C-alpha cells in the first residue's frame, strides 16, 4: 500500500478546463473521498490517477514512483491500481470467478481457495463463483468488482461512484461491506462521490472539489463543523445562514448574541454566521430568548425538522429529535447550542435578507 500525491494537476478537454492546479495528498492506508457536485472534475481526476487519461501538466506520484508528470507517463496497466467503475463494469462474458481472477497471473486463476478468500473478503458467498454477472444483484456486482480490483494487491484502489446506481437499502449494506473489505486489506483507497453522507460516513479524509479546484481537504468532522467557506458549508450539509454583526467577541443576529469562531480573525462589523439545524433548540418562550413561530414540521420518524419564522420575516430550520414536537402555529423560544461559524459578509451589503439553505435530500435523510 502506498500514499498518493497529486501536484498542480491541470487538464482541459479542448478549450474547456476541467481541472486547474489540483493538489491532493492521500496518506498510505487511508480512505479519501473526492466530493463534489456533478461536473466538478472529480471523475476526471480519478481517471488521470488511474492512467486512462493524461494530464496536461502537473504530476502524480504513488509511493515514491512518479506515474505521471515530468514528461513521463506510466500506462494504466503498469500502475498497479485497482479500479471499480460506476456500475461495476464486470466482464459480461466471464463468470464471477473469472472476473475476480482476471488480473492474476495465469497459474493463480484456477486457485479455488484464492477465489473463495476474495469472495469472503467482500462478504460474498463462495457459491456465487460460477454465476454470470447478470445473475447477481447490483450490490453483489459492486462487491465482485471490488474483489477483482483487490485481487492483484494494488498499491491504490480507485472507486468511481460505486454506490450511485444502487437503491437506498442495498447502498448502505454495500457501503459497509466495501468499507470492511478495504479496511481488512489495509488498502489505500480513493472514492469519488457526489453524496455528502457517503463521503462523511465512509472516509478518513474528504477532499471537496469545486469547478476543477480543490476547495478543502480535511477529516469529515472538521469539514462539517468548520468548513472553509460558505459554499463548502452548504455543500456538505443543511445549514442556517444568518446576517450578523460581530461585536465584543459575539455575533449579534436574529437568534441573539452567539459565540462564534472563524477560520481567520475577523474584524468587528458585519458578517455572516453559519449554524447547523441540529444546533437550534426549541423551548417554552421565556422573557429573554428570541421567540419564533412554528410554520410547519416535517416528520421523518427518527427525527424531525421544524420550519420557524423569526421576527423580521426570517425563516430558519431546526432539526429536532425526541417525541415532544411542536405543532404549526406554536410560539417557541430558540436557543443555540455550541458556537456559530462566522464568515466575512458577502460584499458588505448589510441587507437583512435571511438565507435558509437546503442541502440535497440525501444529506437530510442520512
Amino acid at each position: 500500500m502506498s500514499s498518493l500525491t497529486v501536484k498542480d494537476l491541470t487538464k482541459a478537454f479542448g478549450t474547456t478546463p476541467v481541472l486547474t492546479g489540483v493538489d491532493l495528498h492521500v496518506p498510505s492506508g487511508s480512505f479519501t473521498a473526492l466530493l463534489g457536485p456533478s461536473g466538478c472534475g472529480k471523475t476526471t481526476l480519478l481517471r488521470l490517477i488511474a492512467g486512462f487519461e493524461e494530464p496536461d501538466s502537473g504530476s502524480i506520484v504513488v509511493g515514491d514512483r512518479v506515474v505521471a508528470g515530468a514528461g513521463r507517463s506510466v500506462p494504466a496497466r503498469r500502475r498497479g491500481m485497482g479500479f471499480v467503475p460506476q456500475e461495476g463494469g464486470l466482464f459480461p462474458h466471464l463468470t464471477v470467478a473469472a472476473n475476480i481472477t482476471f488480473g492474476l497471473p495465469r497459474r493463480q486463476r484456477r486457485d479455488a481457495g484464492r477465489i473463495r478468500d476474495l469472495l469472503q473478503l467482500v462478504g460474498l458467498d463462495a457459491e456465487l463463483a460460477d454465476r454470470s454477472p447478470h445473475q447477481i444483484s447490483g450490490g453483489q456486482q459492486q462487491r465482485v468488482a471490488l474483489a477483482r480490483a483487490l485481487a492483484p494487491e494494488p498499491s491504490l484502489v480507485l472507486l468511481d461512484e460505486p454506490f450511485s446506481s444502487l437503491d437506498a437499502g442495498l447502498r448502505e449494506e454495500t457501503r459497509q461491506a466495501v468499507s470492511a473489505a478495504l479496511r481488512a486489506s489495509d488498502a489505500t483507497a480513493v472514492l469519488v462521490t457526489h453524496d455528502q453522507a457517503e463521503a462523511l460516513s465512509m472516509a478518513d479524509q474528504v477532499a471537496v472539489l469545486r469547478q476543477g479546484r480543490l476547495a478543502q481537504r480535511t477529516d469529515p468532522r472538521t469539514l462539517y463543523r468548520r468548513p472553509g467557506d460558505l459554499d463548502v458549508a452548504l455543500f456538505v450539509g443543511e445549514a442556517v445562514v444568518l446576517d450578523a454583526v460581530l461585536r465584543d467577541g459575539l455575533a449579534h443576529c436574529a437568534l441573539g448574541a452567539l459565540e462564534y469562531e472563524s477560520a481567520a480573525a475577523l474584524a468587528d462589523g458585519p458578517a455572516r454566521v453559519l449554524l447547523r439545524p441540529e444546533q437550534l433548540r426549541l423551548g417554552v418562550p421565556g422573557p429573554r430568548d428570541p421567540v419564533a413561530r412554528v410554520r410547519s414540521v416535517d416528520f421523518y420518524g427518527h427525527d424531525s425538522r421544524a420550519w420557524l419564522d423569526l421576527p423580521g420575516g426570517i425563516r430558519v430550520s431546526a432539526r429536532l429529535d425526541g417525541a415532544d414536537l411542536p405543532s404549526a402555529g406554536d410560539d417557541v423560544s430558540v436557543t443555540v447550542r455550541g458556537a456559530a461559524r462566522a464568515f466575512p459578509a458577502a460584499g458588505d451589503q448589510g441587507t437583512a435578507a435571511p438565507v435558509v439553505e437546503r442541502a440535497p435530500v440525501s444529506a437530510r435523510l442520512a
Partner: protein
Amino acid sequence: MCVAALALLPLGYIAAYTVDVGWSGVQELVFRPRVGELLWNTARLVLGTVVCCGVLGVGAAWLVERSSVPGRRVWHVLLVAPLAVPAFVNSYAWISLRPGMDTYAGALLVVTLSYFPFVYLPVAAAFRGLDPALEETARGLGLSSWAVFRRVHLPQLRVALLGGCLLVALHLMAEFGALQMLRYPTFTTAIYDQYRATFNGPGATMLAGVLVLLCLGLLLAEIRLRGRRGYARTGRGAARPGRPVALRSLTVPALAGLGALVALALVVPLASLGWWMARGASTALDWNSLATTTGTTLALAAAAAAVTTAMALPTGWLAVRVRGRTATLLERSTYLGSAVPGIVVALALVTISIRATPWLYQTVPVLLAAYAILFLPRAIVTVRAAVEQSAPLYDDVAASLGSSGPDRLRRVTLPLLAPGIGAGAALVFLAVVTELTATLLLAPTGTTTLATAFWSASSALEYGAAAPYAVVMVLLSAPATVLLSRDIHGAIATDAPRGLTT
C-alpha cells in the same frame, strides 16, 4: 474508406453514366410512355402492398401481443416463418398451382404474404415494449378498447409501423424474382429484360437511375424516421407485461383470421413445394446436381459472409468508438449504397468489370463484391450493436488490472464482439443462400446456386425439377427465422429483417 468506396460504386456508376448520356439523352430515355407505365405499375403495387402489410402486420401483432388469443407463442413463430420462404419461391408456389395469378391482384397477394412479417416483427416488438401503465391510465380515464388502441397504442407504434412499411416498400422496389415470375412488369423486371435484350444499353441504366432515385427517397425517409425513434421509447421498457385483452366471443373469428393468414402465407407455399416435390421426385430429381449446387451455394455464402463481416468490423467499430463526422459518413455511405436494388448493383458491376477489368468479368470476386455491397448493412448493424455493448469501460478496467493491448483484445474485446460478429456473418450467409438477381447476372458461367438453378428450372416451367432447390433454400433459411422470432427485443433481431436498408 475502401468499404465506403465499394458500397458507393453502383451509385457512382449510375451518376457517371447519366452525365455521359447528357440531358437530351436522359430526356429521350426517361420521359417516355413506357417509363410512365412502369412508374404507375410500381407505385400502385408499392402502395397496395404497404397498406395490406400494414393492416395485416398491426392486426396480427395486436392479436398475438395484446389479446387473449390462445397459443400466442406458436402464432408468433408461425407469423415470422414466412420470412424463410423467399418471395420468388412463394410466387412460384402460387403460379404453379394457379397460372391465372399474373395480374395486379395476384402480385399484390403474393408480395403481401411474403413481406407482411417486416411490419409484424417491429410492431410486435413495439407492442411488447409499451408501458402498460399508459394503457391503464387511459382506461382509468374511461376510454374503450378501441379508443385505447387508436389514441394510446397507435401513436406509440407509429415509428415501428412506418419503419416496417418503408422496409416493405424498399424491398418491393428491389424485388425482381417474384414479379418476373408473375409477369408483372416493374422497374426491376424491365431493367432485366432490357439488359437481356441489349446487354448494357443506356436504356437499362437510365431505368436503373429512376429506380435508384425512388429508393434513395425512401431511404432518406427511413433515416429521418430512425433519427426520431428514440422519442418513442420511455424508461427502460415495460416493468411488467400488460394484461391481455379478453376476446371472449371474438376468439373464434380471431383464430380463423390468423389461421387464414398463416395458411395463405405458409401452408400454401409449403404444400405447393411438397406437391411438386412428390411429382418431380418420380421424374427428374437429380441428386447429384442438387448436391453440387448446394455445395457451391454454401461455399459462396460462407466466403461472402467472411468477406462482408471482415469489412463490417472496422466500419462498425469506427462508427461507435470514433463518432466523428467521417466515421458517420462512412457508415451512412454503406447504407446508401445498399438502397440500390440487386439488379442495379449487378448491372453496374457487369458494366464496370467489362470496361475496366475484363479479366474479372464473371468471376467469383465480382460476385462476392456484389454480395458485400448488398448485405454489408446487415453485418454492420449487428457488429455495431455488439461494439456498443462492449463499452470502452471494459478496456479501461482490463488495463487497470495489468492486461496489455493484445491481451485485452484476446480476453475482452473479441469475446464480447464474437456473438455480434457471428450473428452478422450468419445473416449475410443466409441472405446469400437465397439471393437471386445479382447471382443471375454475375455468376461465372457454369456456376449455379440453389436460387439460379431453381430459377432456370421454373422459368422453363419445369416446376417439379425446381422444387428440390426451393426446399433446400427454405430449410437453410429456417434457422434464421427461428432466431428472429426468439429475440424479438434485441437490436439485432429487430434490425435483422431490415435487409436492404440497414
